[in-house]
């Protein structure tokens, strides 16, 4: 059993226009949610390099949340579609490494959906709790990270496109 005082840690990558603004709205509306999330602002969810997600998982995050505009509403027309494509591939690879499904999550949250920010974060924290710490390094040893990175080959990407 893991340390009873353990709290899941989530790194979130939110796009500037929709999800980051929605998180601001959650604040302005004084909605309350679990304090386990650390938000990194990017201009578009399309900027989320899969390596950011791997770096967060390798660096001690127990889960990663990506937030972007709804499909069709991307501030940059279609950045979120690219995110989706990449995310699905990455998710399959991560599953191959034994990563539990709820640990990496993609959500479309518009600037008006402050309450969705609250719900998603709370739900994710609750889903991560029974899974315990990720401890990625201990699972795969020092090689885990490199192996995961190397698995993202152009062939794998083409197969998924």
């Amino acid at each position: 059993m893991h340390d009873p005082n353990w709290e899941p840690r989530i790194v979130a990558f939110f796009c500037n226009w929709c999800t980051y603004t929605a998180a601001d709205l959650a604040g302005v509306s004084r909605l309350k949610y679990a304090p386990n999330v650390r938000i990194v602002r990017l201009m578009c969810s399309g900027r989320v390099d899969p390596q950011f997600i791997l770096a967060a998982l390798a660096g001690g995050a127990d889960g990663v949340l990506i937030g972007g505009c709804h499909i069709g509403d991307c501030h940059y027309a279609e950045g979120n579609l690219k995110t989706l494509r990449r995310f699905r591939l990455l998710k399959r690879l991560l599953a191959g490494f034994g990563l539990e499904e709820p640990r990496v999550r993609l959500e479309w949250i518009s600037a008006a959906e402050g309450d969705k920010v609250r719900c998603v974060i709370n739900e994710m924290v609750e889903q991560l709790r029974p899974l315990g710490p990720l401890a990625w390094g201990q699972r795969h040893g020092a090689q885990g990270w490199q192996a995961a990175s190397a698995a993202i080959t152009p062939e794998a990407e083409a197969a998924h496109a």
Partner: protein
Amino acid sequence: MNTNSRNGDIRIGFYICHCGRNIAGVVDCAAVAGEIAKLPGVVVSRDYKYMCSEPGQELIQDDIRERALNRVVVASCSPLLHEHTFRNAIEAGGLNRFFFQMVNIREHDSWVHTDGPAATAKAIALARAAVRRVRLHCALETVRAPIHPDVLVVGGGITGIHAALTLANGGKKVFLVEREPSIGGHMAKFDKTFPTLDCAACILTPKMSAVRAHENIRLWTNSEVVKVEGYVGNYTVTVRRRPRYVNEELCVGCQECIEACVFKEGKFPDEFNVGLSKRKPIYIPFPQAVPQVVLIDRERCLHFKTGKCKRTCVEACADRHAIDFTQKEELVEIKVGNIIVATGFKLFDAGRIPQYGYGRYPNVVTSIELERLVTSSGPTGGDVLLRDGRSPKSVAFILCVGSRDFRTNRWCSRTCCMHSMKLAQLVREHTDAEVTVFYLDIRAPGKGCEEFYDKSLKEGIRFVRGRVAEVTDWALREEEEGKLVIRAEDTLAGVVRRIPVDMIVLAVGMEPQADAQDVRRLFNMSCGTEGWFLEKHPKLAPVSTFTDGVFIAGCCQGPKDIPDSIAQAGAAAAEAMALIDRGFIEQEPNTAYIAEAECSGCKSCIPLCPYKAIGFDEPTRKARINAALCKGCGTCVAACPSGSIRQHLFEDDEIFSEIEGVLTHA
């Protein structure tokens, strides 16, 4: 990239804002400042009550000078609110404005958490990430781009009209695009305006003609915006101009063609009179319509339907030759620098509340229908009449129909209380009917409005507080025979009442336009949960949107009365004018660029860019980014297999350092 700026002695100043009690009430600011002070490179770490205030900004500037800071981190509110403020402050203090990073510990921390220690730990983690990140920042220059001086105003209601006139009077060229065949919007249908009871037409129609006559305004009615491309200062907009089958340049509005139409009487519901009167297939929307040009309803015109019409209208027009059945839809492309969206609202469909009997009982009408009845230019010449032509002896108003109701719309439509009281007074003026108003709360907050409510009370209009349960024609008592009966709880008296009346007026609320979502996408705006267009900030930027150069005004942003709509129209015009008169726009330099030595020329980035900003240089076999076209989304950066595309302000190492920073245990 100025690589030198990343080396050398890094001297960071960290400032955490209390924001009164907004942050300090939850986060232990002194503790955060204490923790951050221990980090390498941090020269000063302070907490202060209001960092955004003048003394707060001076604190930073003094430290830049006295402690030779070359990086600044401020932990306070959202960067979307005050990043600009602090960047300006450090620039004034002598630093490049991009040697700055902001930490959001209000919207993302103190306002959303109640657990003090956890919130403080979160603030420390976020601040640590920013301190790590800011070390890597580079000096950058803001990019300046020219701004096209013309403005597009979408929507020709009172808001759009006022915005267009303000800009045009300021010497700007304006394109005013209206979907309907005439400008005027909802206000054109009103008889009088509250609380002064002055004539609506006397305010509106001179403005409408001013639009038509103004040399700086190009008015396109019967037209819609179908495509918007570009960015602030440089929008390319495609407008679809639907045919009216009458040449606008040739028609003088004599209306002899209408007279001559083979339909001797009007046969089709007149949109302007909300179906209370009939019009012909060739018509002018209303007498004061601007432009004063007739149009032909293609769906109803015999020529279009059968091809066998005698075309008496063409004969009547004679040698003016204004009628042109061959007119086709046109797509026109225009270039503008700013766009003002003033697309207004639609009225709630009263049929959605079946228990009020709208559509079932002919003498249940909506407030806009009554508005047409009391207007002297309306279908009854200003007489308030029942459907059978009698004058009503008693009239009841039901307020909050489709407003403040969790089953329909939760919001208050803001104008219906005042609008109903105005109509109630007009009904008293036009008839000798008893008037009863059923209300939840009377909301009369505007200037002169509470006084108007007092006047209504003194004039003998009865007010009953309670939501009406139903309207029925089922008479239980003799005095209810042949009448409509309102069943409502009188919450002040604590009794359930049955009140028989002749006419019932439903004060229907405001709703976002049916196509608000399409319009939102067209102009790259956001909507609130209710569907109204979202302003950038309710107080700091009430008519701006998240897309620079696109402004909103009037009821498309939320329900409001005429004075508020006009005030917003003026505000939006001023915002546009401020941008135009400055002559240039400053763009965030968050563009992508290619590290040429590392580019393998695989071209995988090229199809990813929605703005076609990436090209391929054949001689060198390298990708090339046109910074003027790049909008800075960073999608290509994340996709480049060799990592040779970078993004200013969002460099890979900056983001990696942020990730490490938020995850480092204290």
